[in-house]
């Protein structure tokens, strides 16, 4: 595992191979596969946040011409496995959050299904609900562990002692709101149940993940379930794990065998039941000596989970390794609420956690009278503080320096509110970020000779916009030592070998390593001149280097903010991001992912916030008119670069994941720039004009 290939295809800027289909709109997403005589499902959602369904009267819905069936907990088939309460759809009369599916109408057309769903009358026994996250709740609890297996709390040294004797201290609380992933393609399932065989066209980040889950819940053999997803319209985590919509659609297909059932969520429905980022309340305490060396770091997180299923975001995990200190403590406490289950949203943990840490670092640099880049440089660790392992590569300082140069950081006057252009106050900010290299189990890849020097490479991975189609083709070409034109990549189908979910920026590491292994074995067995049909399948090889090294990607982010002094409007005319991510596989699609992540971070800084009405327990701003994501006019120039980083330990490509690092440091860079422009330190995202005018 110590050879880094500098192949001919890896590293090049290759146009997306599915580009022509995507630009003309002929690439097929889940809802668009051709099916015969489909039926349309429209859900009935609970109008209370907690209680029971006392009575359902579906007679007028059933009487509507075109309605095939109204499904409720009274007639839904029993699922084989109901342990996962999020997925135990229509299995009881219990209501655990507002918007939960309490029924569904299946009809001959979308219009009729939607109309009929409104005619289903549901009477509830309502119980009082609890959806407010507050730091002073008495029922906050420590989960057994956090998402991705991180420990709930960590402690080393004497934090309190170090804080009380520190020359410079900081004790501030940062809050981030609930946010919704909102991929542009809504979560969608088309289910066909035919003589015991189930086919799902699903909008998912992992076809095999969906297959495993659906097979378990419906008590089916895995090989009776096929999941297909050649193109997926974004996910950003929300399509990483199957949600109730997929189960509901499959339930309907089971009841109406032979007819395809189609269900695409409306945009409003995307705000209940497909996951979201938990709001956080983060208290950060820092201590430093006279030279600006951190003597203590403490990061205490309060966030929410759902009563029906725990999701514990690892918000302070990056704080455990980002900077050097001898005294460090991190904690996570949860409030279990009557809300839908939170889940993954682009860089769960790192994105909200590093926003808080990196704003705190900016504040602390100012208190230490140091330039924020110099302050970070002084606190750069030698090794991973959690494991004591050296880094396989850690080039954060190089990113900061390169970024400073590109952005024009030098000579910056640190005084807040010192620059203006008419009514516009101008400031600049910097932040740093890390994102771990994750590896996931359960991937296999197959290489088959098609004759005449061509190869089929098969792996049940998916492309959610990340460029998998192209990047894996490049990797396969180098792994087999052929040109990319000789590779026929096949992905997005459970008929292909099992692959891990497209999540945690792990796809290329895992799938690429596995393709390398399959190619190596293929050449070993069949040589350079194989016969048509020669085939080799391989699993992901172990990487013993993970025992010897800590592996993470790093990034540095710069932003310029212009703030209207009178209205508080914030504009961000330019950003720079410099990344240390090992070998970049495709220079073109990688740049797009960095830009996309940084832009989503801009939205996190300035726009995005799901507002829960505590009286009713639902998100009130549940559409694009009111849940603001960045639009074209919100985004200025974004300059992206990466440093040459050779990492021989991480995987055969020498690459680190890039899907999430782009968002991680971006909100803090914007927040720090807004502070520099205005002198107002907003510690509560998003930074809306009202908070600047207070």
């Amino acid at each position, binding site marked *: 595992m110590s050879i880094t290939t500098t192949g001919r295809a890896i590293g090049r800027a290759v146009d997306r191979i599915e580009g022509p289909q*995507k630009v*003309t709109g002929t690439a097929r*997403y889940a809802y668009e596969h051709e099916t015969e005589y489909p039926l349309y499902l429209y859900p009935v959602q609970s109008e209370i946040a907690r209680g029971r369904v006392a009575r359902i009267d579906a007679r007028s819905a059933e009487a509507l011409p075109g309605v095939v069936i109204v499904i409720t907990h009274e007639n839904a088939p029993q699922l084989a496995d109901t342990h996962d309460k999020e997925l135990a759809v229509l299995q009881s009369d219990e209501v655990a959050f507002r918007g939960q599916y309490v029924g569904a109408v299946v009809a001959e*057309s979308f219009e009729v299904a939607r109309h009929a769903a409104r005619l289903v009358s549901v009477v509830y026994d309502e119980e009082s609900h609890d959806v407010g996250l507050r730091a002073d709740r008495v029922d906050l609890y420590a989960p057994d562990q956090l998402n991705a297996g991180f420990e709930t709390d960590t402690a080393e040294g004497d934090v309190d002692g170090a804080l009380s004797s520190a020359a410079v201290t900081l004790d501030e609380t940062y809050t981030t709101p609930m946010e919704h992933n909102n*991929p542009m393609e809504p979560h969608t399932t088309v289910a066909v149940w035919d003589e015991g065989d189930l086919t799902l066209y699903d909008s998912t980040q992992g076809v095999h993940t969906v297959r495993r889950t659906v097979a378990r819940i419906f008590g089916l053999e895995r090989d009776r379930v096929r999941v297909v997803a050649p193109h997926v319209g974004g996910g950003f985590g929300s399509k990483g794990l199957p949600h109730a919509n997929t189960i509901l659609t499959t339930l309907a297909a089971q009841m109406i065998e032979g007819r395809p059932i189609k269900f695409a969520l409306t945009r409003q429905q995307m705000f209940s039941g497909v996951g979201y980022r938990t709001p956080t309340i983060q208290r950060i305490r820092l201590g430093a000596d006279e030279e600006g060396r951190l003597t203590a770091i403490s990061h205490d997180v309060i966030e929410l989970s759902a009563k029906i299923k725990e999701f514990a975001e690892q918000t302070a995990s990056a704080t455990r390794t980002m900077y050097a200190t001898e005294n460090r403590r991190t904690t996570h406490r949860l409030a279990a609420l009557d809300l839908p289950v939170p889940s993954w949203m682009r860089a769960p943990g790192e994105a909200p956690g590093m926003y808080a840490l990196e704003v705190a670092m900016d504040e602390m640099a100012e208190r230490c009278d140091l330039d924020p880049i110099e302050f970070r440089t002084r606190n750069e660790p030698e090794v991973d503080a959690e494991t004591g392992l050296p880094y396989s590569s850690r080039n954060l300082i190089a990113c900061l320096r390169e970024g400073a140069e590109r952005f024009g950081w030098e000579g910056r006057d640190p005084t807040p509110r010192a620059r203006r252009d008419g009514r516009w106050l101008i400031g600049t900010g910097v932040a740093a970020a890390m994102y771990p290299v994750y590896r996931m189990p359960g991937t296999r890849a197959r290489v088959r000779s098609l004759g005449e020097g061509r190869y089929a490479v098969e792996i049940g991975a998916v492309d959610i916009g990340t*460029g998998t189609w192209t990047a894996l083709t490049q990797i396969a070409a180098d792994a087999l030592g052929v040109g990319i034109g000789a590779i026929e990549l096949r992905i997005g189908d459970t008929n292909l070998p099992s692959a891990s979910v497209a999540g945690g920026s792990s796809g290329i590491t895992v799938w690429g390593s596995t393709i390398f292994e399959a190619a190596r074995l293929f050449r070993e067995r069949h040589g350079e001149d194989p016969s048509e049909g020669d085939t080799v399948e391989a699993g992901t090889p172990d990487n013993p280097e993970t025992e010897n090294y800590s592996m993470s990607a790093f990034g540095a982010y710069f932003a310029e903010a212009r703030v209207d002094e009178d209205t508080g409007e914030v504009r961000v005319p330019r950003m720079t991001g410099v990344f240390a991510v090992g070998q970049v596989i495709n220079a073109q*699609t990688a740049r*797009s992912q960095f830009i996309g992540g940084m832009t989503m971070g801009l939205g996190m800084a300035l726009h995005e916030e799901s507002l829960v009405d505590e009286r009713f327990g639902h998100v009130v701003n549940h559409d*694009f008119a009111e849940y603001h*994501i960045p639009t074209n006019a919100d985004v200025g120039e974004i300059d992206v670069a990466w440093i040459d980083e050779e990492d021989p330990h991480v995987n055969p490509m020498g690459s680190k994941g890039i899907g999430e690092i782009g968002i991680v440091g971006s909100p803090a860079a914007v927040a720090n720039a807004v502070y520099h422009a205005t002198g107002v330190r907003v510690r509560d995202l998003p930074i809306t004009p009202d908070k600047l005018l207070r």
Partner: protein
Amino acid sequence: MEQEITIKVDGTGHRLTVDTRTTLLDALRERLGITSPKKGCDHGQCGACTILLAGRRINSCLALAVAFEDEEIVTAEGLAEDGGLHPMHRSFIEHDAFQCGYCTPGQIVSAVGMLEEASSGWPSSVTADLDADEIVLADEEIRERMSGNLCRCAAYVNIVSAISETAGGEARR
């Protein structure tokens, strides 16, 4: 209630019966199997469903199919007359102006419609001189005029450069 209509899409005429509540978007996608226009919100808030109606861009999710008897519709699939790639398609590929591709057909149709609006002299809210004979499509103009098309993958930077290059090319021709 149902009604029979005739519409022409990407040069081909279709006669179909629709529920009077059916949107133009659903008529295209569900009845005709033309899935190039996408459904991102069904509320006129995202632009994924953008089509050209008599040469002007509209959100097809906000249009009821029955109101478009005998109209001519162009989707991203039919932009190039020969069924191949339009210069705007090619520019989007070259500039990597998309990731997941779900907003993309709408972006591209919108961009083509937008160039037409600009060359007809329609000002936008960032146009400094409302009486100017010619609209100069600086990046700021493109950003403003393309803000009805959301992209969650946030390919905006590349969308602007893809359109800018196509616009420049057209002006030169």
